[in-house]
């Protein structure tokens, strides 16, 4: 609102043609600012959802924040809608926020009935920013913007009732995969004994492992996790399926999740060029390994060779190949070396398949009668940074303990006896 008043004031002064330099500058600045202002409306609300556990006749005041993200003057209307709207009273239904007000805390009161059917019941508190009206300039947006904070009321199911999901975490660097099952006790009664067995199947539906999770008890309306760990370091890379049977007291629940071990990966083992003469066509033989437990189809190689100025001087591709699971294939491509001089060239090899590609940076050493490919077979190992601060702490502790031990030994084994023997 302040910006608009400011501009109106300066326009009236302009009409009077009695502006001094300062007001002229302000007027121009004001008009420019308004004309250049982006046509943006923005509105935020936090939290986006409030979850409440049902108790008969529950009465509670819930607060949320309305965020004036663009720092504009705005007129706000708040209303409830949805299944539970009749049980909601908005405490401040309409108000204005100034451009200086970054956020405002608003509350609503819920008064729930004595009975609701088991399960999830919802309502929405809609916060509407009214369209700007009668504004000068193009910085006017005729649309209305609204954001919603949801109210979720969970009514417990009769007896014992569990809801669960299955998350697969890993594999870690040591090949361990964690199967984590968050379990929610959604019933009226506590779950005394909750555990699960997890069967692991390959893509050919062959069972390769059965795991048991830990056992927990879960009070009504509480959430706990059960976990099982599988060492997949010896399992061939590929897709797997976990089937978890959750057993809680007398009931059960089955969950499934697909996951992968290792990476769908092709590896260039070796590149050789035999029987070569400079100026002729070089035959590149590339040995490629498929480390995946399923065949990879339509694979081709693309090799780029760069000159000393890093400019592309040659690009050649192989035909397409299908590579069987856990096997190696020789892929062939050809390079016409007419006009190529002896020397070492930078090169990039791509293995392309199904929208993916593997890249290797190499050096190609071209001689009169041979081509050597340099750069395959290097491994980059992960190295952990030295832990300086903790090493210092350990040193202090070790020194302190050694001094303590020495003082005690000195006293009990030497000085004490000496004094006693006097």
């Amino acid at each position, binding site marked *: 609102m302040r910006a608009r008043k400011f501009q109106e004031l300066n326009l009236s002064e302009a009409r009077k043609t009695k502006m001094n330099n300062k007001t002229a500058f302000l007027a121009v600045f004001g008009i420019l600012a308004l004309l250049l202002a982006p046509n943006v409306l923005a509105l935020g609300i936090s939290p986006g959802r409030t979850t409440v556990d049902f108790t008969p006749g529950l009465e509670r005041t819930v607060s949320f924040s309305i965020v004036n993200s663009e720092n504009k003057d705005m007129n706000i209307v708040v209303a409830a809608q949805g299944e539970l709207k009749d049980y909601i009273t908005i405490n401040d239904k309409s108000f204005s926020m100034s451009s200086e007000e970054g956020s405002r805390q608003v509350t609503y009161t819920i008064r729930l009935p004595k009975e609701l059917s088991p399960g999830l019941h919802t309502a929405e508190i809609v916060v509407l920013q009214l369209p700007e009206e009668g504004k000068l300039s193009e910085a006017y947006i005729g649309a209305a913007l609204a*954001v919603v904070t*949801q109210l979720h009321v969970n009514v417990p199911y009769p007896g014992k009732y569990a809801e669960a999901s299955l998350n697969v975490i890993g594999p870690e660097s040591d090949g361990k995969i964690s199967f984590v099952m968050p379990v929610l006790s959604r019933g009226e009664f506590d779950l005394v004994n909750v555990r699960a067995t997890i069967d692991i199947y390959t893509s050919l539906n062959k069972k390769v492992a059965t795991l048991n999770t830990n056992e927990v008890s879960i009070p009504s309306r509480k959430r706990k*996790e059960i976990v099982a760990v599988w060492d997949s370091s010896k399992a061939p890379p590929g897709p797997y399926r976990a089937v978890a049977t959750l057993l809680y007291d007398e009931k059960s629940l089955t969950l499934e999740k697909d996951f992968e071990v290792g990476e769908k990966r092709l590896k260039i083992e070796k590149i050789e060029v035999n029987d070569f003469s400079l100026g002729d066509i070089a035959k590149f033989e590339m040995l490629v390994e498929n480390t995946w437990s399923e065949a990879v189809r339509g694979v081709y190689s693309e090799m780029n060779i760069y000159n000393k100025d890093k400019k592309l001087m040659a690009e050649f591709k192989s035909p397409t190949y299908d590579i069987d699971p856990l096997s190696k294939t020789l892929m062939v491509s050809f390079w016409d070396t007419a006009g190529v001089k002896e020397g070492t060239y930078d090169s990039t090899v791509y293995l392309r398949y199904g929208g993916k590609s593997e890249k290797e940076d190499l050096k190609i050493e071209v001689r009169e009668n041979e081509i050597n490919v340099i750069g395959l077979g290097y491994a980059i190992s992960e190295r952990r940074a030295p832990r300086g601060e903790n090493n210092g702490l350990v040193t202090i502790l070790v020194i302190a303990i050694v001094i303590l031990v020495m003082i005690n030994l000195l006293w009990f084994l030497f000085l004490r006896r000496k004094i006693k023997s006097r």
Partner: protein
Amino acid sequence: MKHKHVFAIDIVLIAGTLLVLAGLIGYSRPLVIAPLPGFVTADTSVLFEFEKAGLILIDDNPDFTSPDRIYAEDNLVINLKPGVYYWKVQGIAGTESEIRELTILSEVNLKLKQVSEGMYEVVNAGNVELDVEVYDDKEIVGNIVLGIDESKEVSGTKFIGSQKD
């Protein structure tokens, strides 16, 4: 009673040793500084400050059954999704700090930029995936889902954004 002073030295030495050991254990125990216990924010980037530790453990349950392990020597900013988290740090020889709770509130934030007459770029400026209902006057004409920071161009006169299930 002849060596009364010897026993006195024994007691002083043993008590002193125990006191120093207790002090060393206290000194070496990892210390968590920030966020404070029960910290609540809608900002998804959280600065973790601690001392004498090299590993941060963060989990969505206080039993730490499946924690995220983050190795860090110094204070570290971690991006978290909205939710309730429990965190602690681990120091030398597995000594652990106290457990603290941290809540990241979800924020639904919708931004409208006018592209042309009746056409808008709808931007999800919040920290959760959004379900946006698009109206033309009073009639609903579409529904779009926006990931965090995602935007789409849509025609309409009213836009209602809510947290996606």
